[in-house]
């Protein structure tokens, strides 16, 4: 529909303006944060939120990055997120393949374990996982978090990938089998290339989920050396208790990676969310 034919109906014009208003309202917290981050704390405290700032500063970002420790926390987040993401996608594509392609007695039960686990509030696992991580000597290391994320996210990934793989027509595999391909080559050379769209979608989604985890990060990691940015940000709150400009700037900096993913991979992100609910 062209814009002109759309605006012919007065009702639709009203709808359009309501939407503009709502969309802007939705962005207000983000806009407020950006405006706050380029002002000095003294300026806001002494002259109030509505005063026109005398000068724009970037020192808040610098403070959050250096003294606030984001220069350490942000890389940590990547060090934890990337291996978790790769491992969970790899392992899930194996288990999903088994569940989608083979008939065996425990198939349904195992599928249910994955789906049920995916719905679990992970707080339920917190204390045993804390104990397990400690027992394995992984407490306060990157690997403790990587292991948990890899395992827990397998529920969702297996669920989505299995439902995606099951739609691939079986004839393709029969042909490959006659050609003498073994099971692993069929998985790697035939199934995996066909699964790329689903993998891209859930990879985008899982990136933000793992990157944004907070609870496990504060339970399985103690030292600032290994802390991801979510936990680091929360500690910023204690460090700069009255200095909201620094806290808000830190929050914005911490959000940059997921915002970049969202801007460039929005289509995959949305696809991932839809795949997860289509069954």
């Amino acid at each position, binding site marked *: 529909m062209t814009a002109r034919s759309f605006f012919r109906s007065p009702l639709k014009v009203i709808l359009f303006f309501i939407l503009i208003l709502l969309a802007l309202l*939705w962005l207000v917290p983000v806009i407020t944060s950006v405006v706050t981050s380029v002002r000095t704390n003294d300026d806001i405290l002494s002259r*109030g939120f509505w005063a026109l700032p005398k000068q724009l500063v970037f020192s808040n970002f610098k403070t959050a990055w250096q003294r606030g420790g984001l220069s350490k926390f942000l890389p940590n987040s990547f060090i934890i997120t990337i291996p978790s993401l790769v491992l969970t996608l790899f392992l899930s594509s194996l288990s999903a393949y*088994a569940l989608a392609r083979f008939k065996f007695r425990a198939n349904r039960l195992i599928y249910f374990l994955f789906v049920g686990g995916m719905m679990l509030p992970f*707080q339920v696992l917190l204390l*045993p996982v804390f104990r*397990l991580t400690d027992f394995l000597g992984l407490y306060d290391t990157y690997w403790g978090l990587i292991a948990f994320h890899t395992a827990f996210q397998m529920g969702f990934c297996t669920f989505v990938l299995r439902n995606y793989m099951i739609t691939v027509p079986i004839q393709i595999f029969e042909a490959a089998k006659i050609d003498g391909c073994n099971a692993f080559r069929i998985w790697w050379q035939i199934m995996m290339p066909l699964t790329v769209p689903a993998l891209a979608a859930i990879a985008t989604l899982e990136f933000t989920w793992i990157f944004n985890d907070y609870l496990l990060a504060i339970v399985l990691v103690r030292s600032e050396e290994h802390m991801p940015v979510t936990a680091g940000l929360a500690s910023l709150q204690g460090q700069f208790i009255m200095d909201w400009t620094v806290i808000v700037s830190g929050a914005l900096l911490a959000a940059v990676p997921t915002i970049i993913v969202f801007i460039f991979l929005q289509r995959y992100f949305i696809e991932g969310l839809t795949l997860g609910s289509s069954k």
Partner: protein
Amino acid sequence: MERASSRLTPWLFLGIPLIIYLIWVIGPMFYTFYLSLTNWDGLSAPEFIRLRNYFRLFQDPVFFISLQNNLKWILSFITVPVIGGLALAMALNRSLPGDKFFKASFYAPMVLSLVVCGLIWSWMYHPENGLINSVLRLLGLNSITRGWLSDQNLVMWAVIAVAVWRQVGYVMVLYLAGLKNVDSWLVDASRVDGANAWQVFRHVILPQLAPITVIVITISIIDSLRAFDLVSVMTRGGPYNSSSVLANFMYIEAFNNYKMGYGAAVSVILFLISLIFIGIYLRRVLKTEEA
């Protein structure tokens, strides 16, 4: 469909992922039950005390406040974002000028971590210089301004509002996907028969969205039970536990008060509540499997 000799093949694929999953997810789920029957401080060996944690739990006022707050969370989540998300999906389902911008601004909060959301909203709610009170003062509504996060009657709603702000886009995505599968022939036919826009929505579109609505509501309830981050960042459950939810109550008992067995008992309750909804969801999955 497979030869008998290749019975082993699925297990070659399934073996490692399943073992990892059993150790880190399914095993711990059961281990929580055991821990809830012990007196464990996190350091020394857990001591078995049978149901004593549960007896204490049912006399603990903070437990009931938390339970009530989770209920408030659930009730808000299955109404406001569901209705709002559906309305937005209906409005944005046709191609509107600027629809990309509209969608993006409702999606945006979804990619921000809850910690980031909690921090920027704490600033919005700030009693002196926060945006909300500043706007109210500007409008001359000084009597309405308050400490949104320090008022015991308001604080929980103030936190839930942030969660709702973030959830609307998510529900909208799910409904937009659902609307793609609505039979447009039926919609057109009912229009020809003289049904007005509301009647078409109520009697033709909404029934076809029923399966997605079940999923949306289940996910919303599970998400409400998972609530932790916002409370932890914005209020730590205060003032006077008035914004405590089960997950925060558990965390504080286990990791601040070192009563891990007691914390485990809280998470067992959390588990039992969520089990109802996981069950509903699994039954749905089972139905689609058999269809």
